[in-house]
């Protein structure tokens, strides 16, 4: 009991160290419990929604009507004809209207009722943002509908207009569901078959079999969208994957930080108490009792940190899950918790921390009592680096600060590691923003010199409308991997609408076969390489030789001269599938398959960048707290271990500022080094993350970090460091001169 009191008193004497360790562990357990449980809930919600509302495995369009029953029977699948139509509600406000499905992609009613005649269901965010309540009237494509309820679509969970937009602005885009009878009256409707296999294995192979069957019947597939590649759906499993990764990576880093920190603190404490340990031995205490005593420190820290963190994690899981359901609307499920994960979140840190500490304690306790009683502290060893350092030519202050760093390598390593982690947290959001900024400004805005792109339902020939420029395009897939698809685009060789440049920034014209950088990186292509693809429309194989790589991140394209394209694809030389224009154009019903507004894409990116704000600020705040804890603890340790030196300096006539500069600022080198190492560590991590998400995002993001953000990150890290130093100043001021005068007197 007396020894336990010593534990409590020691912890109270050095509150900051132990509270700091607990906080790090708390963050670790909280993140683990929250991220893993949210991931489980999201996965369960998605799985339930997919199964109950019969999410399609693929959606496709063909050039003629097909017998859905025959295909369904042959491939043991459900096939249903549905469709979508992009309709204007108000100028600049578009609604994607879906035909009500009964067998596949069945909409769920979140509130209200299914839509009947002259009724429509809307997605809640669009309805609420634009003030459409249930019972209100909305005019879609010139026809009035009554809002019957709010819907959730299994094949359009993540509401976003196209993959290029990335994040939706609910004031300009939403979805609605109307009956098939109403749908058939809409202009610009596009019919789509939804297909779901009853056999749930080998979906890809089954899809290929259906495609082959359709082609064998002489049917042309005009589009084929596998659901696992459709961003409106695939973002959900991606989020589940990201959360699973986060739930492991972040807590592990935090736990590692805490292990290093607590291990270091215990090592120092036990070393400092070696005389006391020797005395305990002499008093008859057994090694077991002392081991138990010192294990109380990590046990208390880890138990309090892990339990409080896990409880916070449980509380935050529900909030996080509900928040994610606003981004990925699905029928609300009751939040579930995996008890084993919670138990693991509590026990794992306790086991790891106590294990590490046990190793350290056992090492010290093996030393005979007589030696311990002499005091190991007085036998301060000079390590190899200290001995080898030649600092004669440097100024005294620099020498002193370097010596302070090499005096305790574990302390310096801990600080370095901590600053690297804090830097990565601070710059993570900035890197994402820089990447999107870069893609927007150096990619889309730079490449597209146009405002609208219209793609027709069938190939046209002749001269395009005045003021527009024609192009042709084919959606192709790799022969060896039909999951990898991209567009081959034929443009006028001297086009001004598409601006490309080479790696040195020189403009290049599509007078030859040019692949964009994301595609080149994805397929590992360089000039001279061949790429063999098949056209998803006619199934024919073609091989193209890459002649140049364009340094643009606007998308995955292979550009070539229009006449070459037409020859390759067996089309008349003056054929085109779409036009580019600076003015909005109108076309007869059924003539246009899709319209792309570059301004809308840019606005979508702008919205995405705006949405990143809270995430960036949140990460900066978290980094500030983690950085502050780490730097404060380390600076506190430096002060604690330099008490005698500080006291001596005061006796010698050092002023407060001079002592602060020497002692508190001795970590500056490590903090700066940690920041500098944090940048490549972050860029590498983000690069790996982008690559792992590229398939799901359908966009290859460049890893970029703006110089000004780097500078801002540096300012934040240094500010954190200054705050930690400020907090430690009092400690320095409290050290009396008498400490130096009493050295060796006790």
């Amino acid at each position, binding site marked *: 009991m007396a020894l336990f009191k010593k534990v409590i008193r020691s912890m109270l004497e050095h509150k900051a160290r132990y509270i700091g360790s607990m906080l790090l562990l708390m963050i670790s357990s909280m993140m683990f419990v929250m991220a893993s449980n949210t991931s489980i809930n999201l996965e369960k919600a998605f799985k339930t929604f997919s199964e109950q509302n019969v999410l399609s495995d693929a959606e496709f369009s063909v050039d003629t009507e097909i017998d859905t029953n025959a295909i369904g029977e042959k491939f043991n699948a459900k096939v249903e004809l549905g469709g979508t139509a992009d309709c204007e509600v108000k100028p600049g406000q578009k609604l994607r209207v879906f035909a009500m499905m009964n067998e596949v992609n069945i909409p769920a009613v979140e509130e209200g009722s299914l839509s009947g005649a002259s009724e429509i269901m809307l997605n809640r965010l669009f309805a609420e943002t634009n003030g459409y309540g249930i019972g209100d009237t909305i005019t879609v494509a010139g026809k009035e509908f009554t809002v019957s309820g709010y819907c959730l679509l299994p094949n359009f969970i993540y509401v976003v207009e196209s993959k290029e937009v990335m994040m939706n602005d609910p004031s300009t885009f939403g979805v609605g569901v109307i009956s098939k009878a109403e749908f058939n009256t809409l202009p610009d409707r596009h019919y789509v078959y939804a297909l779901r296999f009853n056999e749930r294995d080998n979906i890809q192979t089954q899809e290929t079999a259906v495609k082959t069957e359709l082609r064998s019947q002489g049917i042309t597939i005009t589009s084929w969208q596998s659901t696992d590649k459709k961003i409106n759906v695939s973002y959900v499993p991606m989020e589940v994957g990201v959360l699973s990764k986060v739930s492991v990576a972040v807590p592990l880093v935090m736990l590692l930080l805490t292990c290093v920190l607590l291990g270091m603190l215990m090592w120092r404490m036990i070393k400092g108490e070696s005389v006391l340990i020797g005395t305990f031995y002499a008093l008859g205490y057994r090694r077991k009792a002392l081991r138990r005593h010192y294990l109380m420190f990590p046990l208390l820290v880890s138990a309090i940190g892990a339990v409080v963190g896990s409880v916070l994690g449980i509380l935050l899981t529900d909030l996080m899950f509900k928040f994610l359901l606003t981004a990925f609307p699905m029928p609300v499920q009751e939040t579930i918790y995996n008890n084993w994960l919670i138990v693991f979140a509590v026990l794992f840190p306790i086991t790891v921390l106590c294990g590490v500490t046990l190793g350290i304690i056992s090492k010290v306790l093996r030393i005979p009592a007589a030696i311990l009683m002499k005091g190991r502290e007085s036998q301060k060893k000079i390590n190899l680096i200290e001995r080898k350092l030649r600092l*004669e030519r440097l100024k*005294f202050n620099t020498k*002193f600060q370097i010596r302070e760093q090499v005096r305790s390598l574990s302390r310096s390593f801990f600080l370095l590691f901590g600053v690297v982690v804090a830097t990565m947290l601070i710059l993570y959001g900035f890197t994402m923003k820089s990447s999107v900024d870069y893609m927007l400004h150096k990619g889309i805005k730079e490449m597209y010199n146009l405002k609208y792109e219209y793609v027709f339902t069938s190939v046209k020939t002749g001269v395009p409308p005045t003021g527009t420029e024609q192009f042709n395009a084919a959606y192709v897939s790799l022969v060896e991997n039909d999951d990898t698809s991209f567009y081959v685009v034929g443009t006028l060789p001297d086009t001004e609408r598409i601006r490309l440049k080479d790696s040195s920034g020189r403009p290049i014209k599509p007078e030859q076969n040019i692949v964009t950088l994301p595609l080149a990186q994805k397929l590992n292509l360089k000039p001279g390489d061949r790429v063999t693809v098949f056209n998803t429309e006619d199934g024919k194989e073609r091989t193209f030789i890459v002649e140049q790589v364009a340094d643009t991140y606007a998308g995955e394209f292979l550009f070539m001269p229009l006449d070459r394209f037409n020859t390759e694809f067996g089309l008349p030389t003056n054929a085109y599938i779409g036009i580019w224009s600076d003015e909005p154009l109108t076309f007869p019903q059924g003539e246009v398959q899709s319209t792309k507004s570059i301004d809308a894409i840019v606005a979508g990116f702008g919205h995405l960048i705006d949405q990143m704000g809270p995430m960036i600020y949140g990460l900066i705040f978290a980094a500030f707290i983690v950085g502050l804890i780490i730097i404060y603890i380390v600076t506190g340790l430096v002060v604690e271990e330099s008490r005698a030196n500080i006291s001596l*300096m005061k*006796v010698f*006539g050092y002023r407060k500022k001079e002592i602060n500069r020497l002692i508190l600022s001795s970590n500056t080198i490590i903090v700066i080094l940690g920041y500098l190492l944090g940048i490549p560590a972050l860029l590498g991590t983000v690069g790996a993350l982008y690559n792992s998400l590229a398939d799901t995002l359908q966009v290859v993001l460049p890893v970029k970090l703006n110089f000004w953000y780097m500078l801002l990150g540096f300012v934040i890290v240094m500010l954190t460091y200054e705050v930690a130093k400020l907090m430690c100043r009092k400690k320095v001021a409290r050290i009396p001169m008498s400490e*130096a005068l009493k*050295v*060796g*007197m006790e």
Partner: protein
Amino acid sequence: MFITVENLKKSYLMGESKNEVLKGVSLTLEKGEIGVILGPSGSGKSTLMNIIGGVDHADSGSVHVDGVEITALDDDALTDYRRNSVGFVFQFYNLIPNLTVAENIEVVSNISKSALNTDTVLEAVGLEEKKRSFPKQLSGGEQQRVSIARAIVKNPKLLLCDEPTGALDYETARGMLSLLQKINSDFGTTILMVTHNTAISGMANKVYKLRDGEIVETIRHDETVAAERIEW
């Protein structure tokens, strides 16, 4: 007079009771002289030296050093006083273990206005070969020499030595005292030494016997004994 202490009083509170450590001490020492304060443990000799060194404050009375009343100085002025005028030599050397010999000396020369060259003082204490060594690699006597070199590098007006031979063996201690005597004669530094070793008093110009916070006897030596001839 270089040092004038008048009716100096100092007490500490020990819980409820008051412990009077100095009960009206007065002494004087001329510039360039060696003074020794002799007394047993608890007599107040270290407290007296700390007040003269500007490390501690007196309750009443005054201390003048080289014409400056240091008992009237505020903390900042006392810092300047210690920084520019006083050198300290401690019983247990108080060297910074992770700094080399030369760097330990630079701790002081770094903040001194007119510091001597580090190599010069190392030569003066006979340690020019050890400048790159760490304290742990030196003997006790060598460490005390470094401590002396560190104290004199700023060329102080006053050198305060607290039991400078207390942790040394007989021969090393005598060598140390010779060194202090040499510094006194070479640099003209006034030295005030605290010790309980009565044998040391022979090398002092003035000896103050302190007992229970009071000076019970002051002895003036017109002729001082060379340190190497001192025996105990």
